């Protein structure tokens, strides 16, 4: 029962530490900053009319373009969003360009489009500006220009532009997910993708944060020799189990809080739907996966003596976690490919693979039972190995043990 004391201590000491509180609060801020702010900036409309220069060598495009732009884009207060300014077409292009560049430099215009006389054949137009990163402006202009040019081309060939427009009406596909029970639920690829992805990210965060804490706490106790007092007060198993429980409690608090923020923020944009069965099974994979990784962290972490070595090892173990994320898109596109099925049975990949696959298409029952079985057996095996290694390794200082020594520890102890 002493593992409860250990768990409580590990949890309380870390949860009240400044470092934890900072990371707890900082992470959502960073997530929001990275995830939301760029969108907010990009979406923010202009609040003043932007003057854009045009060098129209065809002399026939500027007028319909100006009309169309005024029709389509207005500022919130009703004024036109864009004002076109004809730079002129009498002089040579070189002279006009010089003139236009001066206007740009004097901030008279934001930038200018050069529409060559050959535009109807080549379809090439140039935009010059101090700020070529104004994607929205370029995108809007090019779309509008395209419309105008296509219309003029059609008219030249004797077609009715309206007819053409109708002919070109695009097809919009709406995806609807059918669950096993036959229920229908409208769900885009993005929603599914993100609900899988959130689970995966949560697992990764949990494993990484508490795995790192686990290694660090063992390294600390080894370096300050508290470990000797601990081992003369309780069993190594109590110590290991207590640490895993306490620190995962910590990780869960952290992840739940972040997840809550994530869901609230995300639900406002998209809305997420996860089936109860998926949720339940995800939780099973989540817990088993977490235990497996904890055992791995204990095994590789307890022979280590310094923080630096610990850091190094953590990053190697993390690769297993990053691997499924790299494969996320292909997996989601072919959730039942033989290779994906095969990889789902590799214990270190099972949780991530299954959690990703389930919301997209529930894998067959034998696969679910099989993967959970394999995973459970590996968790028990890995815990056994971790216990043995932990017991011996926590008392070894200085040099890192060789693989042969590790094997011997497994046999003895």
């Amino acid at each position, binding site marked *: 029962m002493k593992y409860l*004391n250990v768990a409580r201590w590990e949890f309380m000491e870390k949860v009240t530490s400044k470092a934890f509180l900072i990371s707890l609060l900082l992470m959502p801020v960073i997530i929001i900053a990275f995830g939301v702010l760029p969108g907010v900036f990009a979406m923010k409309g202009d609040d003043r009319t932007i003057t854009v220069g045009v060098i129209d060598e065809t002399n026939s495009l500027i007028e319909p373009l100006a009309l169309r732009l005024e029709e389509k884009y207005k500022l919130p207060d009703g004024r036109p969003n864009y004002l076109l300014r004809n730079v002129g077409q009498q002089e040579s292009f070189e002279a006009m360009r010089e003139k236009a560049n001066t206007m740009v430099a004097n901030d008279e215009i934001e930038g200018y489009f050069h529409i060559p006389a050959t535009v109807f054949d080549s379809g090439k137009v140039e935009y010059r500006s101090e700020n070529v990163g104004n994607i929205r402006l370029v995108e809007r202009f090019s779309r509008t220009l395209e419309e105008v040019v296509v219309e003029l081309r059609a008219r030249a060939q004797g077609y009715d532009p309206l007819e053409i427009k109708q002919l070109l009406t695009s097809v919009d596909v709406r995806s609807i997910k059918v669950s096993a029970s036959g229920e229908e639920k409208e769900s885009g690829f993005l929603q599914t993708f993100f609900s899988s992805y959130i689970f995966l990210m949560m697992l990764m965060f949990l494993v990484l944060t508490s795995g790192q804490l686990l290694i660090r706490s063992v390294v600390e106790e080894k370096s*300050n*020799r508290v470990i*000797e*007092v601990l*081992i*003369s007060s309780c*069993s190594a198993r109590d110590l290991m189990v207590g640490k895993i429980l306490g620190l995962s409690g910590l990780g869960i608090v952290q992840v739940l809080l972040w997840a809550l923020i994530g869901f609230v923020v995300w639900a406002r944009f998209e809305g997420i739907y996860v089936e109860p069965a998926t949720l339940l099974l995800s939780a099973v994979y989540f817990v088993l996966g977490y235990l497996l990784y904890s055992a791995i962290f204990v095994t590789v972490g307890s022979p280590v003596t310094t923080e630096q070595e610990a850091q190094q090892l953590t990053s190697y173990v993390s690769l297993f976690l990053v691997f499924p994320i790299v494969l996320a898109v292909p997996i989601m596109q072919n959730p039942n490919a033989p290779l994906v099925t095969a990889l789902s049975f590799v214990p270190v990949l099972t949780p991530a693979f299954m959690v990703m696959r389930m919301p997209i298409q529930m894998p067959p029952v034998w696969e679910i039972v099989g993967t959970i079985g394999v995973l459970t057996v590996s968790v028990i095996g890995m815990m056994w190995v971790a216990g043995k290694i932990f017991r011996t390794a926590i008392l070894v200082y200085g040099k890192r043990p060789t693989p042969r020594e590790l094997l011997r520890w497994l046999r*003895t102890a």
Partner: protein
Amino acid sequence: MLSVRNLRKEFDTVVAVDDVSLEVKRGQLFGLLGPNGAGKTTTIRTVLNILYPDAGTITFDGKPFSEEMWNIIGFLPEERGLYRKSKILNTILYFASLKGMSEREAKPVAFRWLERFNLTDRAYAKVEELSKGNQQKIQFIISILHKPQLLILDEPFSGLDPVNQILLKEILLELRKQNIAIVFSTHQMEQAEKLCDEICLINKGRVVLNGSIREVKQRYGKNSVHIEFEGDGGFLKALPYVRKADVYQNYAEIELTDMSKTKELLRSLDDKIELRKFEIVEPSLNSIFIETVRLPASAPAQQQGVMA
């Protein structure tokens, strides 16, 4: 309380502890002595079940190590350290909880000991804010808070100033009165000489001397008497129980065949010389230590034969 028989512990290429046997009773202060690397700490770690012995038995009141032992053993490791960022009281209570004490039980005891060590006002400070000596006191409190029946202290005196050494000594003597078996290792022979009921001197993993201080000194002793007198001391050499006597004008160093003959010697001096000082001279533990440890490798075994 604690009985160690024929303990052996090997590391890769070294035999750290070789055939060590010792016996510690309740209410006894037991000194585990020996030079650096003699195997003291390994012996202690094996007793505490931190390391597993390769051979030999360790029993507590006749029983082998079991989970109950964790709650009745107190331990101060040689290399000190605590959780640096944690609060002192919390740290003490955590270790007490691992020894099976509830927070309610442990808290008043913790404060009593903090007061004893003059650290009450630091109870809520962080460990890293304390000096090294004070951290060591906290660790000592941790080792005794749960009233262990067997207390094992690895070098408890090192790192403490003289005042605190005296305080520690007082506490150890109090604990001994409470019938606790106390084992401590030390290099400081004066401490051991003053405190210990029994000692065990280990060198190169083997026991070279053990027993009560008195026994050890007698066995190892030079059996000599120094006297100061007036008169003619020439007869001293002729006494039957005198092995050797260096007689000077007013002073003589006499080596007896048997220490029990001191009274006879004293009586025989009475009517022959005017005695001013009669002193039974024992070698200090320190000199025994130095002499034993310095002996060539083959000698301790022979010495041990004599002792056993």
